[in-house]
């Protein structure tokens, strides 16, 4: 591939389509391995896209904060006195030290351990240990703005989900999510009380490229019945029935993806192994249909998965949310949470918390099977010959349809790789674009 030759190093403006094929049906393995491509991804994608950082329920009161990452940047998501949310880069403008080492809590101010610089909840410089030494310096205080903790350019929420972005010229969050707002309402707005995260966040390391779990979560229904055969066997004593594709779909737009099957509207929820959850969903079904309509009432718990570009994965039904934070071309740090309706009865919430744990927690009967595949996708591709063999991604080519009831670009059949192809096309567009005006709306 020409892009990796010396006269065409990976850079904005380069032809990244060459690495995924015109229809993105063949993927060059080097996009998962190359350090230069990875560094460019941090700038072209993680610095320019809206990134999921928190759920509002994690920080209900002024001074409440949680830590997260935007790409490789450690960030603090802090509730302000006026209920707005600020996202600070967790680094001191003096020597660069990490300012806050806690992952959540409540603060009046943040104080750096190194020289005692202190910052308000909004990141504004308040003062330092030995302040008079700074005040006596000729140029101190000339521009106090430079003494503040750096922050994200913009922060916005969509129905409880907090996103932040470093690029001030990006589209609004609403435009960025596009038709996926309509889809996300199935999870976030099926009850008037809204949603919350369970307290806590799973964190674990997987030695793979971030795009490997991302393309999986974008639509890989094909792996579910095989990779995860042991989960249903343990829960129900038998495998999941194969999909016939009549009422199942891949939908995508601007790199966001959702695959779902309307025939089994409680499919993913049933995998939690909790009768209380199923009873709760059946009891509420009529209400949800009235609120959101038939399609969304079904997809909220169907056998399905979601990707919000670039790295937020969601498993409807089990209500697992996860971010694949990049840590170099060969490593990720997974953060994952459980979502539940705020108004759900306590015993139903408890069933969701435990069901989420036993399925997709780090010791969960489904999660256990993914990690090894994702690591060896990476490791088995590193050989000097293996890395030259492109990867097939052509299932469902030509399956595109129009469906008035389903927004976005729709392909027929869940056993499809249409979403993965759309993810890589958007990836190539973002990698090549000099700025947001060059990103084609798709």
């Amino acid at each position, binding site marked *: 591939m020409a892009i990796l030759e010396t006269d065409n190093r990976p850079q904005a403006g380069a032809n990244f389509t060459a690495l995924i094929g015109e229809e993105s049906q063949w993927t060059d393995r080097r996009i998962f391995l190359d350090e230069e491509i990875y560094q460019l991804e941090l700038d072209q994608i993680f610095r320019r896209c809206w990134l999921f950082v928190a759920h509002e329920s994690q920080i209900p009161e002024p001074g409440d904060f949680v830590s997260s990452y935007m790409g490789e940047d450690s960030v603090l998501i802090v509730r302000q006195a006026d209920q707005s949310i600020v996202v600070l880069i967790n680094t001191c403008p003096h020597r660069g030290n990490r300012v806050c080492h806690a992952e959540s809590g409540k603060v009046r101010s943040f104080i750096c351990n190194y020289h005692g610089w202190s910052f308000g909840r909004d990141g504004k410089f308040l003062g330092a240990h030995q302040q008079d030494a700074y005040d006596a310096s000729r140029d101190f205080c000339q521009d106090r703005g430079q003494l503040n903790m750096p922050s994200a350019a913009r922060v916005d929420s969509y129905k409880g989900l907090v996103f932040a972005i470093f690029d001030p010229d990006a589209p609004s969050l609403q435009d960025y999510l596009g038709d996926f707002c309509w889809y996300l309402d199935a999870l976030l707005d099926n009850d008037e009380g809204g949603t919350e995260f*369970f307290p806590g966040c799973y964190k674990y390391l997987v030695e793979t490229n971030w795009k490997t779990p991302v393309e999986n979560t974008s639509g890989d229904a094909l792996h579910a019945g095989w990779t995860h055969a042991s989960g249903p066997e343990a829960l129900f004593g038998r495998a999941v029935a194969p999909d016939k594709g009549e009422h199942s779909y891949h939908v995508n737009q601007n790199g966001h993806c959702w695959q779902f099957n309307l025939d089994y509207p409680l499919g993913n929820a049933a995998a939690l192994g909790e009768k209380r959850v199923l009873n709760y969903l059946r009891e509420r079904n009529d209400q949800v249909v009235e609120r959101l309509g038939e399609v969304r009432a079904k997809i909220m718990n169907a056998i399905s998965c979601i990707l919000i570009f670039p790295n937020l994965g969601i498993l409807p039904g089990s209500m697992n949310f996860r971010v694949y934070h990049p840590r170099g071309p060969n490593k990720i740090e997974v953060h994952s949470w459980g979502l539940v309706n705020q108004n759900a009865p306590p015993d139903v919430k408890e069933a969701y918390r435990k069901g989420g744990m036993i399925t997709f927690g780090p010791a969960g009967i489904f999660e256990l099977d993914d*990690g090894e595949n994702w690591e060896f996708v990476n490791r088995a591709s590193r050989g000097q010959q293996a890395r030259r063999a492109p990867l097939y991604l052509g299932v469902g080519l030509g399956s595109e349809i129009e469906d008035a009831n389903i927004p976005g670009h729709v392909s027929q059949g869940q056993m499809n790789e249409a979403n993965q192809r759309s993810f890589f096309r958007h990836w190539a567009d973002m990698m090549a674009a000099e700025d947001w005006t060059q990103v084609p709306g798709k």
Partner: protein
Amino acid sequence: MNQPMQPDLPDRPTSDRPILDGPIPDRPMQDQAGASEPVRRAIESFLYREARVLDEGDYGAWLAMLAPDIHYWMPFIENRRNEDPAGNYGPGRLAYYDDDLAYLKIRVKRMQASTAWSEDPATRQVHVVTNIEVEPTEDRSAEDRREFVVRSILLSYRNRGERDEGTQFARRTDLIRFEAGKWLLARRRILLTQNVLLSRNINTFF
């Protein structure tokens, strides 16, 4: 409509039983209050045997060592400031394990399934149990039943395939019961010493 993933599931009662959900006060271990030497030896043997059956993957034997009312809890450990009243773990938060016997049986079934590809070839593992302290409890509710609070440290070492490794240290607090001539594990709280789990998963018991 054929709904393949909606079989009848057992009703699971809401959990309201007491759990080891906070720091257990460190009372000084007085000789007369401590367990007798034969009891201490019996409990040590119980824990060593448990470690061995887990190493051997003999999960049937392991399940037989658990009380029917077991609560097996391994909370996720958070990084919080020392002054934070929430503490760095607690009930109702995300956990690796927060299991009753039914949950543990599901996990074992999955481990033993012929389709658990990522357990074949098997993971090689060693459970090292050390720093065992045994303390009798006040519970005298039944004449033939005695319970002991048992603290120990577990080193879990896993090795898979050619060179995949996982090493975790945890501090355990157990409630071990002697009833009808049999020793059983009735409660276990496992405090891991890692925040970000430095492994891709936990395919083992602690």
